[in-house]
Each structure stands twice: as C-alpha cells, then as structure tokens.
C-alpha cells in the first residue's frame, strides 16, 4: 500500500509542479479563472492520469525500462523545476519544450546510460506521448482545439478503468522494473543500438496480461520441476483458448526474466523472421555474445539461432539455465511451410542448459524434437484450475459495484462465485470479459442465471444483443466493420477500417469500435511524425467465433468476401482506380 501511495504522491507532486509553472506563466486576468479550474479534483485527476499513462506507455515501449525508471523517482528528472517548466509548455502553446534541457537533466539521473541513447530524442518521445494522452482526455482536448487553457472542460465525467487505475498499473510496472524482467530489459537496453533495435518490446503486453494474475502454482511447479530434472528440453503447455496460457507465460517471464517471444496472429507478429530477430537479439544482449548486429542470415533459417544458443550455453555456469518462453505456437503463420524444418525454425535438439517453454492450443504442431520434452495440457476441469478461477472471481467480487450486483440479486458472495465458476467453464477469457461488465453495471437488470455459459456463448450473447438493436444498422455498418477487423492481418487504423469495411462514415466505425471495445486491442503507432491508434482483435478465440458464423447463412458472414473487399481496396489504392480491375 505504501508503494501505491508513493507512486500516486509522486504523480501529484510532478503534476503540482507543472501546474504551478503553468499558472505562474499565465497572463493576467485569465490566471484566476484557470487557477480555479485546476483546483478541481477532476482536472487534477485527469492531468495526473495523463501523466501516469505517459510514463507507463513510455516505459513499456522500445526496451526503455532502464532509462524510464528515474521518471517515477522522487528526485527524478520530472520533479526537477526546470523540467516542469518545459513540460508546461505543452499546454502553453507559445513555444516548444526544450528537449535538450530535459534530455541532459534526464541523462544525469540515469545510472550508466547507453552511449547511443540520445536523451533529447527520448525527451521528445516522452513529451509527444504526454501531448497525446492529454489530447485523449475529454477535459484537456478542448485546450488543444482552441489553444487556450481557459477551454479546460472541468465538468466532464471521468472514464476510469474499473479494475485497474493508472496508479495501480504504475506500481505493478515498478515491481517489474525492480524484478528479473526489469533486469533483462535493462540488459537489452544497454546492448548495442543495432542489437537493441531488433528486440520487440513486449513489456506492455506482459503487464497487460498479468495485472491481476492469480495462482497457477500447479502449472508453475510443473515447469520448474521439468527445468530441474532435465539438462535441457522443451516444455509445451497446451490448453483451450482462453484458459490463460498467455497470462501464465507472461507471469513466468515477469518473475524469471526469461528471454521471450509472443506470437500474436491478429497483430501480424507471428512469422519466423520476426521471432528470429527478436529472440536472437535478446540472446546476444542477455549473454553478452560478441555480435554487434544481426547478420542477414539470422532470419533465413534456424542455424544462426542455434549457433547463438550454443555460444550462450557454453557461457552458462553449472546451475544456470537459458530459458526461452514462446507463446502461442498455434498462432504462428506457417503458410510458407517448409516441412523439413520446425515452425519458427525451432531446433530439434537444444544445447545443454537451454530450455524452451512454449504454449499452444491442443493441436498437432508437427514439431520434430529430438531431446528431452514434456507436453502438458491444462484441463479446464482440473481442480487446480477451478481453484484459480474461484480465487480470481473472489477477488473481483469485492469491488463495490459487483457487491451491489450481488446484493441486488439477493445472493451471497459464495453463491455468486460458484455460479460464475460454473458459467466460466474454467475459462479466464470469459471472466476477463464478464467481470468488468458486472462492475460497470451492464448486467444490472439481468439475473445471474441468465448470464452466458462459456466463452463462446458469451461472444454469442454480445453478438445477438448488438445485432438485436437494429438489424439494418447491423448489416449495413456494424457487421462489415467486425468482419474487416476479423480478417485484417495486423492492427489497423481507423482510416484503414474505413477503406477495408467500405463503411464510409467515420462516426459509424467509431461507434462500432466503442461497442466492441472489450474484444479489441488498441495500440499506438507513429506514422510520418503523427501518432495513430491501431485496432486489432484482443483474442484469437474471437476470430474463430466470427469464422464459425460463416456456416449460418442468415448471419451473412463471408470472410472470403471480406478479404476480397480488402484486396480490391488495396489494388485500387496501389494500382489506381481505373487499372485495378
């Protein structure tokens, strides 16, 4: 609890300094008015939230853990008066912040900063993030529209995440930073620029996947036993979609600082070359191998990876292990099948001391493994799994609105918990969706018994409700957007959804994105200097659900046609309207 206090306090402290600086510079009569607005809780909270999100986003992207750490220090660069002064310029619009000033103060606060890091560039990245986060808050957006502080809209209701505030996330993040994952990311951050730039930063993803992780001791024990009893080998965890494989692997990575890669089909990050680049760069950095960059051949086949593993293996002490955590082998794009080699070019044998812990759905992966290996399936009805599900529900049942739901339903917490255990069918993805909805009050008028059973049924339920609102709107606007999101091969922007769904009104698409928010994953990407929000499906099981709709004629789901729509739109864009067809 102290940690939470202090993070929150530091955010307030920084926010206070920036606001002071803003007011101090504010001109004459406006100051009074603005002062009043900043005194309001809503304004302060929104400001703090933007600041917190900025730091969180910065720290979890691009292996910046090490240099981000001082940002949350009491005596870090952000609490510096000069820096606060520069930060305040974001809302003053009279001049740009001086990135060099911020950068040099920042650099001094970092222990042993990598030579190649340009802190004035980092300062610009941080401040761009800050600007974007302020712009995303309803309270500050008008300020940017009018370029005056007086436009602060302090009367807006704050939309805060129900289960995890930004302060909580930052506390979690700090824990990670101080743990083994932090050590790994810091080591990678101090590798050469060329190696570092090949590493994909999954910190954000790991944080997101583990923020209310429970139990799983029974699985973790099994993995640990395997690592202890074998000199090398593959441990493959299998299980149905939504059972919590990714969360589990993320937790392992977070606790143990394993070298890691997550295959995510909907983001397009599921090909062998992406895997090889990321994993090879991590191995080079973590084991201080003598390479300063990745050779071209690194992504051509598994030979280079194998070579690195051998070199790293030779460096391991007697009790040291090199563990690679690889998520979702089933989501790997194996279209260019080369049956002579394993998917992702995983080696058939591993050097001594080298282990691969991987997850997959229960399917034939055609893996040729010629060393120690164990496959284990997490069964949804396994008592250990059910216990974990129960613990998860119990923790969430303590939240205020869930409590009132339980009260309204005239049941006790145990009855609530057991019903949900049954409804979830041992599936965490189900709970990931349903529990926040209960907390948000979406089920106020719906009895516990009427809740959907199992993940599929849950998807179906949502689908039916959305469709039921207005069938015409459904088929004309909503369905095309959902289907387009299902078939795109990586996260896409709003503009691309406009092209790919052939829905011409932006507002319609925004509405659909809002309605299906819980099934989507939102990322930010820089394109030509400006930041865009990108969207993709949150979980692979949703893709399967939509695909299964194709068998029902009256649903009018046709993924092939959706692909054709996208292909034709791309042909138009690239080849020109007259020439495409």
């Amino acid at each position, binding site marked *: 609890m102290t940690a939470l206090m202090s993070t929150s306090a530091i955010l307030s402290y920084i926010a206070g300094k920036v606001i002071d600086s803003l007011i101090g510079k504010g001109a004459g009569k406006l100051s009074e008015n603005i002062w009043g607005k900043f005194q309001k809780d809503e304004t302060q909270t929104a400001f703090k939230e933007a600041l917190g999100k900025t730091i969180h986003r910065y720290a979890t992207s691009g292996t910046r853990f090490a240099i981000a750490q001082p940002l949350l220090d009491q005596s870090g660069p952000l609490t510096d008066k000069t820096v606060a002064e520069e930060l305040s310029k974001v809302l003053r619009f009279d001049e740009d912040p001086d990135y060099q000033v911020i950068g040099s103060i920042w650099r001094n606060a970092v222990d042993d900063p990598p030579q190649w890091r340009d802190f004035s560039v980092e300062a610009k990245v941080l401040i761009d993030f800050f600007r974007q986060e302020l712009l995303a808050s309803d309270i500050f957006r008008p300020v940017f529209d009018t370029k005056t502080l007086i436009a602060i809209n302090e009367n807006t209701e704050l939309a805060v995440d129900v289960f995890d505030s930004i302060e909580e996330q930052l506390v979690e993040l700090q824990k990670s930073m101080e743990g083994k994952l932090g050590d790994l990311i810091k080591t990678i951050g101090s590798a050469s620029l060329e190696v570092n730039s090949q590493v994909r930063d999954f910190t954000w993803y790991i944080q997101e996947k583990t923020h209310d992780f429970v139990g799983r001791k029974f699985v973790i024990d099994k993995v640990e036993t395997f690592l202890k009893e074998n000199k090398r080998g593959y441990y493959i965890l299998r299980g149905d979609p939504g059972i919590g494989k990714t969360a589990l692997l993320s937790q392992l990575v977070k606790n143990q600082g394993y070298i890691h890669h997550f295959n995510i089909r909907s983001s397009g990050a599921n*090909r062998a070359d992406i895997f090889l680049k990321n994993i090879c760069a991590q191995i080079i950095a973590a084991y201080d191998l003598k390479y300063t960059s990745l050779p071209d051949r690194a992504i051509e086949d598994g030979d280079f990876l194998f070579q690195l593993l051998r070199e790293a293996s030779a460096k391991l002490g007697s009790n040291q292990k090199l563990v690679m955590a690889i998520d979702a082998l089933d989501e790997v794009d194996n279209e260019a099948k080369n049956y002579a080699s394993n998917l992702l070019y995983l080696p058939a044998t591993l050097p001594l001391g080298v282990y691969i812990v991987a997850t997959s759905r229960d399917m034939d992966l055609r893996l040729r493994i010629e060393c120690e290996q164990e496959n284990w399936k997490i069964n949804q009805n396994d008592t250990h799994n059910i216990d974990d599900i129960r613990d998860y529900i119990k923790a969430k049942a303590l939240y205020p609105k869930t409590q009132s739901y339980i009260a309204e339903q005239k049941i006790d917490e145990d009855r609530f918990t057991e019903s949900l255990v049954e409804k979830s069918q041992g599936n965490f993805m189900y709970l990931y969706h349903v529990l926040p909805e209960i907390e948000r009050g979406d089920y106020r008028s719906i009895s516990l018994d009427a809740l959907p059973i199992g993940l599929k049924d849950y998807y179906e339920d949502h689908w039916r409700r959305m469709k039921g609102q207005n069938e015409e709107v459904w088929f004309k606007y909503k369905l095309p957007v959902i289907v387009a999101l299902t078939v795109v091969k990586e996260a896409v922007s709003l503009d691309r959804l406009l092209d790919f769904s052939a829905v011409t009104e932006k507002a319609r698409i925004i509405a659909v994105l809002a309605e299906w928010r819980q099934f989507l994953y939102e990322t930010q990407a820089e394109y030509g200097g400006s930041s865009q929000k990108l969207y993709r499906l949150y979980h692979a099981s949703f893709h399967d659900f939509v695909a299964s709709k194709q068998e029902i004629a009256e649903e009018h789901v046709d993924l092939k046609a959706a692909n054709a729509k996208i292909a034709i739109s791309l042909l138009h864009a*690239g*080849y020109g309207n007259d020439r495409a067809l």
Partner: protein
Amino acid sequence: MTELFEPLSQEQLRQLPVDLRDYFLRRLPAHLVDADLYESLHHVLTDLNFIEAKCSAGLTYELLNDYLSIAEKIDTGCFSETDQTQLQEFTQFIRNQSRILSTHPSLTFQQSANQPPGTAPSVTAIQYWKTGSEPRQWLRVIFREASSHSALISFRTPKRPVAASISSSGKRIAICDGDVWVFNIHSGREIFHLTANLEKSFSTVALSPDGNHLAVVEKTNYRSDRLLIWGIEDGARIEVSENPVTNILALRFSSTGKLLAVGGKDGNSGALAVFNIAAKNFLWKQIIQRTIVRKVIFLPGDQTTVAGQGNGICSFWNVATGELKKILQAHSGAVTDLCVSRNGKLLATSSQDRTCQIIPIFKPQDTSRNLQSKIPFSDEPHNRTIFSAHQATPSSVCFLDDVRLISGDVAGFCHIWNAMDGRLESSPISGEGKILSVELSGNQEFLLVTSVDDHMEQVFETKMFSKPDTSQFNQVRFMCFLENFIELALARQDGGFEFYSVKDRKIHKTYNLPGKTNVKSLVVSSGGRFILSIGSEHNWEIWDHETQSKVNGTYDIAVGNDVVSCISSDGQFICLFSQEHLEFISVKGGRQTPVRLPMIVGAMRFLTSSKLEIVGTNLSLHSFQAEDVVYLQAEPSRQLSGAVYSGPFGENPMRGSSNFQFAAPDTFVQSSTRMNGNGVVAIWDTKINCLGMREFSTPVKVHEVTLDGKWILLSEPSTSTCYILDATTQNLQIVWSYPLLGGLISGAIQENGELVAFAYRQGGMEIAQRLRR
C-alpha cells in the same frame, strides 16, 4: 486479361499514406490468396515494380514467403497453365536473387531482364522496356557462357586454410585456417566456429560421417597438441583426457563414426593411435620408428587402419588390437595422401615422389573376406598403376568413382585419371594456389577441393565431371576490348590467344603457342593494334591485330612471379617491370641493361616511343603499412623524374597491395585496402592530387579505366559485385552495379563504356551491354 493490368506506379505508391503503403506491400498477396482472387494475384506477383517496391521496403524475405506460400495453390490448379508456369519461374527468380534484391532492390529490373531468355521474368522485363515503363538504364547480358565445371559453392576463409573435411552425408564441411569453421554445404551457413587466439590455434580437422562430430587439433606453443572432439548439434565437448600423440598430423573417423584414428609424431618417431568415441579412451597406440605418420584411413569394415608414412611406406594395422599386419613400400618419397576405393579392393596413394599409385590390396581371385586373419593383398609392383603427369607434388588423391581417380597438386592443378590404365583424362580444375586436398563425400555426391593461396574451398558436384566441359572460355586469364570496340582479345592460361567477335558471338581467330606456358600479363598498345603477352617461360610475344598475325616473340627475358608490361603504340618498344627491375626492349633488337627501380610498379604506359610513365607504390622498408603513391616518367636514357606522395589516404593507412590503372592523360586510378578492411578507389593526377575518391566497406579491385578517363570498372570480391563508376564525379558515383556469377579473373570495359566483359575464375565468360533511353 494481361493488358488490363499496368505495372505499379512508384509515384502513386509514394503518395499513399505510410500505413496504407506498408499494408499494401506487406499484406496484399495474402489477402488475394484468402479471397481466391488468383488472377489479380498472378498480376501482382509478376509485376516487377511491385517486387522492387516490396524489396525496397526491406520486405524481401516476406516477398519470398508470398511466392513460397502459393506453391501449394499452384499445384491445385487455381491458376491457368500459363500463369502457373510464369509464377513458378518468378518463384525461382526471387529465390535465386533474394540476396541481391534485398541489398540492391533497384536491380530488380536488370536481374529480371537477364534471366534465361523466354522465362517469365525475362519476358516481362523486356516488355516493360519496350513499352517504356522502365526509364532507368541497365546492363543487359548479351553473352553468357558459364563453365559446367563451376563450383556448387565456394568458401573463402580469412587466413590460409590448413585443412578441410567433408562429411560423408555431404551435408557439412569443416575448414581450418587457424580457426575452425563448420558450414552447411547447401546453404553456405556457418554453423560452428572455434576461434584461435594468441595462445592457441587449430590445425588438422575431421568430420564424422554424419557430420555431427568434429575432431580438431589444438596447437599451443608450450605443450603438446590437444585433441578436441565436439558435438556439432549440441555444442558439447567429448573429454579426451590423455593424448598419446605429441604432434598430431592426421585424423580420420571410421565409417561408423565410432572410432577416430590419430596419426602424427612423437619426438623422432611416428605415432598412431585409435580413439573410441563412446568410451572416451584410446584403444591403443603404436610407435613407428624413424618416420612420421602423415595420413590415416580406415579400410571398409573398420577392422583395418592404414597409415601413410613419411618414408613412403603404407602400414596396415588391426583396429581392435593395434597389431601390425603388413607393410608396403609404396613410394620413394613421403606419402602425402591415402584413399581406398568403395569396394575396398584398391588403395590409392599420392607422394612427394610426384606420382600417384593405385595398389590392389586384394588379389582379384581371392574371395576371402576375413580381414582378421590376413591381408591377402598383392604388392608385386607390376600390379600397381602409376600416375605420373604431375609437375609438382600431388598433395591429395581420391577415387571419383569406380573407374576414375582425381588428384590435386601443390602447383594448383587437379587431374582426373583413368584408374585402370593410368591415362590422364582431363585437368578440369585449376586453383590459383596450391591444392591442399581433394576429398569426396561418402555419398559420392560432392567433391571438396581446398586450395591454399587464394584461401578457397570449393565444393563441386561430382556428377558434373561425368560430362566434358563444353565452355570454350575455361582458360581465359586476361581479356581486353580492342580498337574496333566489338572485339575482345582473350589470353588463355596455356599461352594460347583468341580473338572473339562480340558482334558474331564467336571466336574467329585462335593462336596456339608451341610448348606449355602460362600467361602472366597481357597488354594492348594505345590505339589497340599491338598486343603484348608475357609468358611464364621467360617468353614474350607480340601480335599485330591488323594483320592478325604474330609479329615477334622471343625467350630470354627475366620475369618473376609478377610482371607489369607495356607496349608502344607503334609496336616497336616494350617495357617490362619484374623483380624490382625495369627493362626497355626495342623489338627490332637492342636491349638495355635493366635498371633497378625501388618501388612496386602498378601500371606503365608509353607516352611516346621513347618515354613512358610509371605509377606504383614505394617499397617501404620501415613500415609495411604506409604505401606512398609514386609517379615517374622514364626514358631509355634512364632519366627518372616524378612525384612521390606520402600517406595518400590520411589517417587510416593502407595494407596489402594496390592496383593501378592509367586513365585519361595525366591521371590514374588506384584501388587499395585500408587497415580497417575498407576498400578505397581514388583518382590521382601526376602531381598526386586527388581528383576523386570513394570508399567501400570491403576490399575492391580496379580492373580497367577507359582511356578517356570517364568510366572505371571495379569489382568487390566479397559481395561478387561489379561496379562501373563515373570517374568524372568527385565521389566517383556508381553508375551501374552488376552481381557477378562468381570470382572474377579478368574484367574489361569497352572504350565508350557501352560494353563490359567478365572472365570467371571457375571458367566461363559474360558480356553485357549498357542500355538506356
């Protein structure tokens, strides 16, 4: 439907939002597949502009994936038959060229156009050119004849190789040049590397038949050799606690890979031992007095091991007991290599006595297979076949198949012999340096040839030796374009001489020289009428191109290994530089005493019949790093005058030797290598002012500069790329780049820069023409 589809417009693509452009390049083919839009897919994947755009975006690997992932669709009949063939040809093209396309995407069009005529990439490119949709200039191959004896793959090591080994499986080779490297033969990928340091280095290597175990010898200055055995797959080392052989010279795995024979010397005696891999111990060790063991092999069945000794003897040993079974006086000089035929009946040996022999080790009528009891071979000399055409010591020998033997010698020649009658069949391979070893993979598919001086290991497919090499251009050592611009002069390694007409695409005149000789230098007079060739046997010849006849020739000039020569435009005077001495010769008679010139001459040319200019580098006695560029003018009256420039490239000194070529009047071009390994090319005037310079990340060699000084032909061996530079620009802009087929032995550029020609080390020749709008 083809006409409905225009190639992608790069301009239009540039105007798209960045994320859309990315998505378009990355994902369009996959969406077309998922949408079953095969016709459009065919258009996109046969669109050179799409290919180039995708490669330019750094997506070559993904592009290759696009092609490979439709391979299955091709088989299921989604495409029309024509489209199917075209896509297959494009797939082949992208696969072959992916390396080049990823580094030089702008060469997409040129590489495509130069695919075999009639194939889809070539047809498509030519169509683009004809319709005007390709505006850039390019290099079109107008003649290409590759040698059928070209290597499947070549490996070049940083230092001189000392040993190499090929696995029986034909999958891997191990090369030792102080370091040890193991490569995958098919992909060329490095899969294992042991690094030498100041204290230790590695010598002999052997790969187990399955290629999974590597035995190497670690040498240090302060103690006896250590035998190391590594598992390639898991990187684990097998402990060899004791080492009975102080100085290990030979290693060989048994056919099962379970035993390792170790030979060498112990003080003044030879030593032989057999190591059991599984048990990690030596079965036995034997001392052989007053000689050394240079090579060891196992006979089929692994029950007998044979040692080739320094005293010309082959000794046969029982593998299980270490008991000596038989000795055989094979040669009068040291045995350099041993090899046994596949049926185990014939033993082939090579020796310092310059012969190879085949010795039957079983009597033809003997049906006994019991090797335990006796070795019933016949050692009567009349049963042996002796091969004696090597001019130098044969260093290695092996059976190419049941009826042919291949041997390599230290002069760089490989001979193929008829094993039955000892007849020399052909001499298909000639390395630049000594041949260190020839070794066949156990599956008989691959032949490994290691040559020392050019640091090369070449792997050949044995099946190519079954047919005679038809290329006429396997012996070309020097080439240049002649006066009329469309004729090439080709000097052959054997001293012969040919005129090749580019227009008619054929050799229209051949001169063969009596006797054997190697051409050491070939130069053309300015104006191109006279051609001077210098041979290794102290001989020179002048050919008059106008009359197409030999006008002169004599034997008695002093030439060493390196010679630089020039001939005056009237063909009356020649000048040679060799072994630090400069010599003027009047062709009509009258020679002057050679004058010592304390420099390394890079190039010479006559300014008038009695005056010539010389460029080169100082012979620096104090430091081998600093190379000063020297320009001199010389007359027969022996007045030397000129300029010396010190430290031409600033702080980063040069290493190794430079190449020089004269360019326009009063300028010359130098290529050299910096200490950091960068290649540099520079143009100087005669006062040694730098007129232009360009740096490359690896060493480069200038081949020719056109006389008007406009074009420089340059090659970068490490990337097998040829560049043509515009010498009139300060930074020597690259005008064309062209990926070569292999190692270049000679390159020539035509006077107006329109044609270039390449002769390859492995044989074969290419001529390309520059096309532009």
